[in-house]
């Protein structure tokens, strides 16, 4: 099977975030970036399926130069090669613009399966994969918790997470786009050999012109959502916070829970 996996690089969830000057987005300088969590699971799922079927994984990502680090990691984990939508015109897009660009890049090759994560940990639209599916005209499923390729490779049995502790089991015709939920497998670690091999693997850079797209169709210009500003949300009420010595803080808290909240 020939499998594409789309990954996004997002700020590390542990990182301290600061709103940038102007307020439109966060300060990205000195911010540590990682591969989006559910995308890591998508990558692992793709690598596992490729190994089973004797196929290969091609990894795609859209974003600035720092994204090469995420692609290198994917190559070290076992992807055969990488495609980087690197032109600055691609940046700042909503899921429609990003999905349009990725869809056009994916359509240049013939994949049996396209995997994405279910949702990015930064913008969190949860729809890039389904927009890609729309462009390719393929079926898709979101929040995928299990993938089994049927004998012959024409269909996949897919488990999709629903609300209230239920899973739905589906049968999709291939090719298809599957948006993978975190937790469905155990992502591997890169080996030293993998890291060395990754240095020789290809990262192909693409601009809108390579995809027969105009600059106005991608990135912020091609988007229908405009991000005006980000801010720290207001609290519903003010929490009483204890800091400093843990023993003293614990004692104060227990006192409050007994006498004020009366829940102990």
């Amino acid at each position: 099977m020939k499998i594409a996996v789309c990954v996004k690089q997002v700020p590390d969830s542990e990182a301290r975030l600061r709103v940038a000057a102007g307020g439109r987005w966060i300060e990205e300088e000195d911010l540590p970036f990682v591969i989006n969590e559910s995308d890591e699971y998508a990558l692992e799922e793709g690598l596992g399926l490729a190994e089973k079927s004797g196929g290969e994984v091609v990894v795609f990502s859209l974003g600035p130069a720092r994204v090469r680090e995420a692609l290198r990691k994917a190559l070290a984990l076992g992807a055969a090669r990488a495609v980087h939508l690197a032109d600055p015109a691609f940046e700042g897009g909503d899921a429609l613009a990003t999905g349009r660009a990725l869809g056009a890049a994916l359509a240049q090759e013939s994949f049996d399966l396209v995997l994405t994560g279910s949702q990015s940990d930064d913008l969190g639209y949860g729809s890039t994969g389904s927009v890609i599916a729309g462009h390719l005209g393929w079926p898709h499923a979101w929040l995928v918790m299990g993938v089994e390729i049927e004998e012959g490779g024409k269909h996949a049995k897919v488990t999709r997470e629903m609300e209230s502790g239920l899973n739905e089991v589906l049968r999709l015709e291939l090719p298809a786009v599957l948006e993978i939920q975190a937790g469905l497998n155990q992502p591997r670690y890169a080996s030293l050999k993998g890291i060395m091999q990754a240095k020789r693997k290809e990262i192909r850079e693409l601009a809108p012109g390579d995809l027969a797209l105009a600059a106005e169709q991608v990135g912020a210009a091609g988007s229908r959502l405009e991000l005006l500003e980000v801010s720290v949300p207001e609290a519903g009420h003010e929490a009483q916070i204890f800091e400093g010595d843990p023993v003293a803080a614990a004692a104060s808290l227990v006192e409050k829970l007994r006498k004020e909240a009366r829940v102990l």
Partner: protein
Amino acid sequence: MATTVWIVLQHRDGKLHRMSREALCAGQRLAAAVGGTAEAVLLGSKVEGLAAEVGGTALARVLVADDEGLAQYTPGGWVGALAAAAGERKPGYLVMPHTYQTVEYAGRLSQALDAPWVAEAVGLEAGDGGLVWRRPVLAGKLQARVRTRGQPVLVSVQSGAWPADEVESGQAPVEPLALAAGAVAPDREVLGVEQVAGEQVDLTQAQVIVAVGRGVGGPEKMEPLRELAQALGAELAASRPVIDNGWLPRDRQIGSSGQTVAPKLYLAAGISGAIQHLVGMKGSQVVVAINKDREAPIFKIAHYGIVGDLHEVVPALTAAVRETAG
């Protein structure tokens, strides 16, 4: 021509999804804000009963697309029906509950209609420059204000953002929504529905819950939290990352894909407070948060908090609780 606001209702087994009523409230208010009219849209097969129920709402009409191909939800069926109907009737807005089902098909619908989708909307501001929507970003640590370009606009509303009990009642006629032949094109075979890992533990009945997040750092560090839970007579629970890592079984997960709880006391240790977790526990009477990051969103909904290393705070808290009890 006045703007039409469509409210696309989600239902299953003859019942409206609880968030469908929140979407009705959001749709009514949006219609009022833009000086338009609100209409409900029901997709399904043999849904007369539901349509009659929705008819008791203040809406211009309840539109029912009744088609055998819509008997069961599929993205192809839903996107095909809604794209065809919206293309013909030109609603300005399609309001949906922000459920897993909506997220699955709405991206594709936005692609089919070349329409913006405001996902996970939590607020609406109507100003001179047009409508501005608020939605969480970066796992709820920040909130974004966004504006849309073009119509229709898709909006999915987050659980708890618009009150279901403030839906205006009224009388709405039920009318058929005709679909072009071939519009409904199911693109999957649904083989069945299964329970995830049994659901043996019913956390909804617990009076006190100690919930553990990614901040605990590893399975070997869980013991002090078990001890705290024991001292408090609490059930141990967790947010999604802890479950995904296998540090606790899946039946102890709280949040949008786990259980929804409302205990007397909810103590969250090492949980930053992503929206997916908050929707599962914000009904708790008293929320206590322990986190090393003072900016973590969990402190926004907590009543009490300790800022510090949970590995130091938790044993101290266990000792303090035992002392009180003794």
